[in-house]
């Protein structure tokens, strides 16, 4: 694990500049700033329709201090494939220049990833196209006014699930792992060093890398701006959001989540849910069900880890 000092020293430079129009406490901004610190300037970013598309600045103002293109909502993964192909063919024509070192990065919302963009993403993953795809997951379509996505969790109120969402959150990192890509990781904006390390690692791997970040959204979640780190931290502490990596099929729990294999180390789920207005309509019965589902999920992870160990 990198030390905070080392991380800060190696990345004093900001690539996503102040003056952007993110809401105060926006998780997406924290995620992008730290991702770019890890990846550095030789990075080109594709951003499909989302909050990010807008908060980067109204024309002609731009907050990103690196090559950045907006893209159609469903088209991020395919565009990144094309861009990475272009860098490869440029590297062929102009060897020894920067083109061979370029990282192509997608930064997409959960809607752009788990809904409209999933076909293109699945295609790119199956092809093992060489880029990092990052989903910043604020668990709804925030840009268009907080509508449900397939990444919205059970019980959450959105403008299209006014009584709380009935269905469950789509587990996209696992779907990506099922594509047998070399690297899948989950992050939370409350753990920037973990995020920094994971992007560093992703950059060093050839092929399709997928990183899924839980990114708080104060207006969308019904939380105070100053709580936008605390709430995702509770998501990790309760075990509701699990930090892990899947490298070439092998699952590893990350530092903050590993101890939670022991159920007594996990804070009760209610501590995470009760702080957010979006979960205000969850009944006690549903809360118990959700806790049970979560505990079962952890048991399955324990099984998977022991199965992996036995295999070795």
């Amino acid at each position, binding site marked *: 694990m990198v030390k905070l000092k080392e991380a800060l020293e190696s990345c004093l430079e900001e690539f996503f500049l102040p003056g952007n129009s993110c809401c105060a406490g926006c998780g997406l901004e924290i995620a992008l700033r730290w991702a770019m610190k890890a990846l550095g300037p030789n990075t080109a970013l*594709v951003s499909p329709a989302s909050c990010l598309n807008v908060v980067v600045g109204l024309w002609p103002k*731009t907050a990103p201090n690196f090559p950045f293109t*907006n893209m159609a909502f469903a*088209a991020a993964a395919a565009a990144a*494939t094309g861009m990475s192909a*272009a860098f490869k*063919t440029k590297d062929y024509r102009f060897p020894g220049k920067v083109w061979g070192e370029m990282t192509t990065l997608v930064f997409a919302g959960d809607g752009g990833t788990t809904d409209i963009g999933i076909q293109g993403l699945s295609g790119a993953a199956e092809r093992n196209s060489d880029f990092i795809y990052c989903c910043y997951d604020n668990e709804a379509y925030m840009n268009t006014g907080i509508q449900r996505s397939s990444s919205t969790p059970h019980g959450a109120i959105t403008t299209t699930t006014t009584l709380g969402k009935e269905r469950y959150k789509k587990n996209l990192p696992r779907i990506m792992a099922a594509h047998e890509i070399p690297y899948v990781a989950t992050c939370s904006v409350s753990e920037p060093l973990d995020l920094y390390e994971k992007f560093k690692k992703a950059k060093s791997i050839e092929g399709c890398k997928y990183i899924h970040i839980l990114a708080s959204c104060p207006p969308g979640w019904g939380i105070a701006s100053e709580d936008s780190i605390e709430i995702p931290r509770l998501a990790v502490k309760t075990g509701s959001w699990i930090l892990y990596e899947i490298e070439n099929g092998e699952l590893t729990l990350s530092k903050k989540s590993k101890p939670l294999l022991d159920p007594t180390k996990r804070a009760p789920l209610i501590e995470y849910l009760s702080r957010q207005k979006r979960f205000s309509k969850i009944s006690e019965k549903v809360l118990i069900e959700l806790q049970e589902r979560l505990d079962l999920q952890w048991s399955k992870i324990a099984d998977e880890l022991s199965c992996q160990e036995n295999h070795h």
Partner: protein
Amino acid sequence: MVEATNDFVQEKETIVIKGNVSAAYAAKSARVQVISAYPITPQTTVVEKLSEFVDNGLMPGTQYIKVESEHSVMASIIAASKAGTRTFTATAGQGLFYMFEMLHWASGSRLPIVTTIASRGAAPPWNIWADFTDVISCRDTGWMTAFCATHQEIYDEILMSYKICEDSDVLLPKFVAYGGFILSHTSKPVIIEDQDLVDSFLPPLPDEKGWPHIWFDPERPLMFGNLIMPSGFYYEFRMKIHDAMVRAKEKIKRVAKDFEKIFGRNYGNGLTQEYKMDGADVGMVIYGDLALQMEQAVDDLREEGYKVGMIKLRHLRPFPVEDIIEIAKKVPLLGVVDRATAFGSPTGGPVSCEVKTALHEVKGTARILPMINGLGGREVTLEQQKVQLKMLIKLNETGELPKDMLYGTLWDGLLEVK
């Protein structure tokens, strides 16, 4: 994959190939750097042939992306083009419709992307045969559109298109369309040009810095496509696209001239190609493969003493308004044949609408007889086209309209519907 060699040498040769293969050879001759493709009949053999070229090391350095849909085809090509590479793809019918959202991203970003369309009918019911409704429904996307009538023209037009699209005054994408099956799947001799000659005709591949207006370069970070308020330059950007498209007419003419000088093949002035219009009493405006057979019909009737001629429309966008006016001043009556539909429009046929619009308020120009013909690959015989020409003569001489007109348009060759 075979290790690519730096110097694949294509010498001039004439080979008997399908129209689709002719398109693939053109992409190879143009040294395209990024190809992205998805199968759809009747285009598929274009990208199959390109796979073969790439796998055999005949296109060194070329990246070939096999995506999972046409939306992704155009998205990947757009990004690759933005990064400063020459790109190519091919599609048809449903595939083009599926791409539609991305077409605007290509023109809005002013990217010189060339895409061939082996045109086919729109479902339902499923139809995979010649019908230009697919490409013509993309008329207002900011793409230029050319039609080809022969196998050789497919090869030639693709080369010319790169030169037109990459001109810094134009910088727009372009469709090169030809009739599905009729051209895509039949074989004819095609001259594949000497690589050095092609290289001397085409602009050089983009240098390291990419296109003049758009790039991905960490040394010159730029952002593309941010939200722009109504008070920003959105409106002006749109005007510029129209301006570039209209100005492309002169470029198309110049490129057609250059092409003829270097390769010896003539395509009229690039926008339109007249055929035996001198001394003609009536003429037919027609595009795509139907134009080729119409030449034969004109020849046959001329031999019989009828004074008929035709104009092959080579570009729908930019639309050759001036040429159409000039031709319409030569004869009192022009037929306009559409192998495409524009439902509910003034004539029902897209090109006849355009022609009428071009002539509107221009004194002393021909009367227009709009015609629809051969939709969904319906066979159009030489005899039928001769009858069409004779019908024009009769209309001109006697004022007698053909029977079975539908709202002022002749839907020729309909089956009897009981």
